[in-house]
């Protein structure tokens, strides 16, 4: 890990100002992603700005829905009564992620910004367009068993966000509140926050230099109360998803009135599927409907040599999740 100076930010304005002036500096909250990346020599920052003193806290119901401060910890949000009862997919996505120790440390804002587990990205001995733009992508023809089949490009096929929470957030129409160094806030839906790799896989999201995630808001809805997060891994716990599905259904009289679907582990970003939702709405809540929706969700998949299994796995994962909420 390179040496750095450490600043405990006294205010959001100071924190964002520091990063505006020094784009190479980084914020630190829980540290679980940042220090891991710095120890692996994947990121180097001359200055770390500690934002743990920021007042971006609280888990509360507002007129716009559930508002979660970006400095809240995964464990506290995952076990929050309001989240458990009104937004089960959010709670499940948090408690199925990482380990209890990491969940006690990791902030919600930091979780949203975690980076890919692609082995080529994480080993500086290899070229990687995300790490060194223009250097190439060995994953295209290499070890790609855990990489994406949706949203890929010739430059990058990494599941850029390897986590769980943002999949549930994308499904449930969550909106991020971002704040810049002028104290000005803007709202960005999670589905528009992450960028597809295209020719610039190094650009992963729409954050401007110095901009902070201060909160995430999830609208209240019948399909949010009847939601779940289903995760399939190489071992029973403490592993990243091979495939996952966050779904919410509003079923009345056996007919699906509203549907929300997002997939994890298979896309280059948390993968909201309007195609699957379209195949669900107005249809009977049956396995046949769910199978059709799953097929629609994966129709555009571009599997490679080692990750072709994900096309079927993701479909089955989605069907399982839908069966659970249709119950």
């Amino acid at each position: 890990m390179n040496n750095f100076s450490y600043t405990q930010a006294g205010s959001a304005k100071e924190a964002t100002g520091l990063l505006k002036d020094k784009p190479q500096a980084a914020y630190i909250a829980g540290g679980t992603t940042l220090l891991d990346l710095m120890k692996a020599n994947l990121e180097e920052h001359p200055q770390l700005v500690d934002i743990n003193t920021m007042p971006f806290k609280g888990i509360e119901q507002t007129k716009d829905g559930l508002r979660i401060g970006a400095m809240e910890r995964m464990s506290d949000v995952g076990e929050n009564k309001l989240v458990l009862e009104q937004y089960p997919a959010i709670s499940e996505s948090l408690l199925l992620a990482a380990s209890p120790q990491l969940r006690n440390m990791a902030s919600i804002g930091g979780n949203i910004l975690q980076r890919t587990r692609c082995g080529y990205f994480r080993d500086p001995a290899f070229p990687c367009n995300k790490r060194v733009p223009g250097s190439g992508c060995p994953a295209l023809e290499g070890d790609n068993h855990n990489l994406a089949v949706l949203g890929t490009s010739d430059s990058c096929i990494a599941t850029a966000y390897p986590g769980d929470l943002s999949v549930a957030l994308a499904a449930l129409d969550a909106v991020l509140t971002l704040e810049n160094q002028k104290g000005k806030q803007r709202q960005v839906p999670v589905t528009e926050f992450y960028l597809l790799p295209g020719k610039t896989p190094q650009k992963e999201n729409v954050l401007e230099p110095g901009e902070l995630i201060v909160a995430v808001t999830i609208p209240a809805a019948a399909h949010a109360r009847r939601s779940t997060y289903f995760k399939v891994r190489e071992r029973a716990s403490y592993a990243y998803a091979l495939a996952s599905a966050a779904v919410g259904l509003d079923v009345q009289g056996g007919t699906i009135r509203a549907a929300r679907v997002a997939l994890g582990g298979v896309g280059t970003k948390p993968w909201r599927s309007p195609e699957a939702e379209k195949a669900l709405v107005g249809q009977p809540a049956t396995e046949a409907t769910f199978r059709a929706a799953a097929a629609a969700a994966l129709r555009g998949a571009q599997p490679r040599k080692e990750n072709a299994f994900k096309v079927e796995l993701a479909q089955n994962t989605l069907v399982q999740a839908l069966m659970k909420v249709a119950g």
Partner: protein
Amino acid sequence: MSTVSSSGTPEGTPPHPEDGTRRSFMKQAGGLLGLALAPPLVAQAERLTAYSKTVEGVTSLQLKINGTVRTIQAEPRVTLLDALREYLDLTGTKKGCDHGQCGACTVHVDGRRINSCLTLAVMNQGKEITTIEGLAQGEALHPMQEAFLKHDGFQCGYCTPGQIMSGVACVKEGHASSDDQTREWMSGNLCRCGAYPNIVAAVREVAGKA
């Protein structure tokens, strides 16, 4: 990745200034940074609270560990784990992967279990840190330590301090009410010897008495 290059310090020899010119210092950001960043209309009192400290190079850090405040001279990049092991000789806390994947470095900070390898010592000033050395009351072992002995919850013993710290927290959190729940909530602690059944038995026994 070698531990030597990551910490910048050879094992067991904390860095000390080579000469009098390499001084530790704490710089109030009200100086250079404050000048550059202070909005002109901010009141002086607000500035004093709004701007905090920047730490560079080797500085004096105070850590409250097992009820005692200890002072070390260390760079901001020193993790809590390295501070415990390399600067304070509290080697009960183990370094396994150094990336938050194995749980060998588990300690409690303000009553919550965390991975000490993924947090900086400088960030943990003013907090209550409990390590494996702080569990026993004199010669009397903590019930979780007793249970690990009784159930043979280890083989080589390297993961054991982390397992015990995690086990204590797991019980306190109320996440050890069944074998399955215990396995799930202890999954952040790996044991390459495979003592898992005995670890679960030890944690469950303490949970049953709690």
